[in-house]
């Protein structure tokens, strides 16, 4: 997995690419997410358009980010969820937990 990020209107947009399956790649996403939380950046969107799939490790990282942000008055939202990941979110009922937008632009706007 590769990971980049950008900031749009005060919202951090994380852009993982590839597969999130555990091991050092997954640690990258967890650490970057928590680095931004430490910097008091509390509005985060994860653009999943380039993530082919993830397993439970990836879902655990999303949950960890969401709960940490919510506990600090922030929010983590998802954008561009692929069919495979949406199916996993549905199976695990996490689809009911995350706000999920069709585009990054819509996700960013939802913070206003």
């Amino acid at each position, binding site marked *: 997995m590769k990971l980049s990020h950008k900031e749009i209107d005060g919202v951090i947009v994380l852009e993982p690419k590839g597969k999130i*399956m555990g*091991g050092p790649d997954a640690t990258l996403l967890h650490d970057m997410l928590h680095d931004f939380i430490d910097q008091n950046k509390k509005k985060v969107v994860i653009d999943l358009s380039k993530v082919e799939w993830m397993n439970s490790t990836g879902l655990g990282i999303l949950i*960890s980010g969401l709960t940490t942000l919510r506990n600090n008055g922030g929010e983590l939202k998802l954008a561009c969820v692929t069919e495979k990941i949406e199916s*996993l979110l549905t*199976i*695990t*009922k996490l689809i009911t937990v995350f706000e999920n937008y069709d585009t990054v632009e819509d996700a960013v706007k939802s913070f206003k």
Partner: protein
Amino acid sequence: MDKPQISGDTIIVPSDTTYLAEVDEFVESKLTAAGVSSSLTADLAISITEIVNNAILHGNKNDPKKLVTVTLKLGQDDVEVSIKDEGQGFEPDSIPSPIDEANLLNQVGRGIFIVRSLMDSVDFRFTSGGTEVILRKKIKE
């Protein structure tokens, strides 16, 4: 063994999650070569990396001297995958349901549930030498 070894339809990896990507690459190359659809290949890769991750972390407890062995048996209509570790085993039915409201925000505990949802069958064999998980999935519609 300090790095993964591949022999035919088997890959053996030391207990280090760094090697998950190599397990995925092995699985996807074999399934793609056999003409399995990309969606089914993804379901199998998700399930296999999930079980291998558990085998490394919980079965072999990250002991690099202990190995995880993944073997694919590709049939005409289905695939059977065996994943063996050298751990003490566990009680699969004792894992709390991750879709219970109280567990929904837990960071861990979804792996086996996801694998059971994606595969046609999941069987566990516990022996004194370790645990074997056997996954089966139809690959022809």
